[in-house]
């Protein structure tokens, strides 16, 4: 009896796990792709000279549209130690995210807040939420609707990088924007 009950619980967990795993692996792949894309976006945000000239010939996309597309491709935002506000250089990118949500009322995103492993787990859970909320508030102020955005903090429970190095810590202090 007892054993069966437990197996049932475990079974339902496996089902949950498969679903969740599918969701996670897809999102983390895009994160990785963005990790590299992001730095180039950050650079090309100011140096938007190379791409638009080529794309301008397409006449389909304006410079502004390309900038918006590049901005939307960045969906991981990193934070300084012990800081809950997003970095000033991410402001423009987040403005594009907000406008995108404002223009697509059916779109739903989830802001997943994370912390590095220093400090206690429950404090880090709260810090992750504080970080996600700083982005949430900015998106709302810039036109997104509260109902489009879900916030969840994972604290230090889902690190992106392992190891006790400053490099790993800085990769783990982040908010991921996950399109639902």
């Amino acid at each position, binding site marked *: 009896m007892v054993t069966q009950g437990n197996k049932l619980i475990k079974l339902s967990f496996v089902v949950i796990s498969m679903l969740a795993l599918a969701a996670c692996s897809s999102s983390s792949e895009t994160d990785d792709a963005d990790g590299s894309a992001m730095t180039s976006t950050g650079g090309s945000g100011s140096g938007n000279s190379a791409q638009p000239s080529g794309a301008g010939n397409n006449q389909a996309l304006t410079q502004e549209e390309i900038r918006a597309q590049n901005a939307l491709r960045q969906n991981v935002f990193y934070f300084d130690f012990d800081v809950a506000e997003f970095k000033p250089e991410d402001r423009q990118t987040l403005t594009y995210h907000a406008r995108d949500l404002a223009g697509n009322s059916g779109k739903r995103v989830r802001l997943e807040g994370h912390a590095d492993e220093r400090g*206690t787990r429950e404090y880090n*859970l709260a810090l992750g939420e504080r970080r996600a909320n700083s982005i949430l508030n900015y998106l709302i102020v810039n036109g997104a609707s509260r109902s489009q955005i879900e916030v969840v903090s994972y604290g230090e429970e*889902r690190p992106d990088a392992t190891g006790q190095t400053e490099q790993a810590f800085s990769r783990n202090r982040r908010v991921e924007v996950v399109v639902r």
Partner: protein
Amino acid sequence: MRNFLLTLLLTVYSVSVMAELSIQITQGVDNPIPIAVVPFSWQGDGVLSEDIAQIVVNDLEQVGEFRALSPGNMLSMPSEENEVFYRDWRVLAQDYLLVGKIDRAPGSQLVQVQYEFFDINRELKLAGEILTGSVSQLRDIGHEISNVVYEAVTGTRGAFTTQILYIVADYSPTGEVLYRLEKADYDGQRAQVLLESVEPIMSPSWSPDGEDVAYVSFETDLPRIYIQNIVSGQRRQITNYPNINSSPVFSPDGTKLAMVLSKDGSPDIYVQDLVSNELIRVTEHPAIDTEPSWSTDGRSIVFMSDRTGQPQIYQLELGAPSYQVERLTYDCFQCLKAKFLPDGVNLVHVRRETRQDPNYQIAIMNIDTLRVITLTDTALDESPSIAPNGSMIMYATKFGGRGVLDAVSIDGRVKFRLPSSRGDVREPAWSPFFN
């Protein structure tokens, strides 16, 4: 004669892969008490699966205060009182002697273990009894004998039959993580999986009767609090509030659950009555308030808040207005995750001394004298949990890049480690006494 039945052993679990923990003593005392534990004689057929004398030796040595005589140096091998010659042990400079024998209980599958414990210097028998149980309970019988020996010598109740809960994060080569809530003997033996999930599990906490565990699981994609019966595996979801639901801790009388909810904007401390489900808000502050723990009398809550900019420890009496909050720590850059020792005066906590010093260590502060003793010297120590007899603190740290569980005596003199063969092990929760 006493019938040895541990109800918790009746648990049947479908056990999959578990983290095997085994104790290593990393630091002991300078002048441990010399004790001779003679291998117990066995009158039955075959070989027993457990060596009771060795279990007792391991128990006593890992708390650091004892040093056991090697059987190879013994002059005689008594198994009961009439075979004991005190002189044999005095010449070996032993203070105490434990002997025993194991027999089949007549007409049953059970075994009976007779043990006797002697003070060599006073030539006095201090304890002795016969414990009966199944072969699979031999470990429990060994731990029970350790309790008797420890209490007879130190005057403090032994915690060798207690258990621990902890979380394991297992990283597969492909990068997937499997989170498990596990339960084991205090020494890491006989681990069982209570819950397994691909979503994080956090903050296990025992009910005061040792029958239930409260924890946070992200299995619905959001952190929610659950209570699970440890024996039956039956569980129920306790909270489903928006945003963070975390840090469940049972009140000392088991009728309430302190927790952290951020449904009203920022994380605050709440208390939910487990009978009426009434929810009371305890703190009300736009900063982060978290990591609640109960004072020993259950009348106030100790918690961490970063309302001054950095985490510090505060205390608030239940029912008192929130402005009557009392700040307990001042002399640290960050002080977190506090819990009173059973004496109600000494506060165990996680401490980062200065902004420049990046280390998080386990410390004890006497709230009357404000004296602080830092117990550990590793860098990322957290989640301290106190043995029910108040003698040791188990905590999580990093060793070789992996999460491991360490324990330290409250005077800092003794340390032992429970290394795990797989995964990151963390968030130990030491059980209450079971009887």
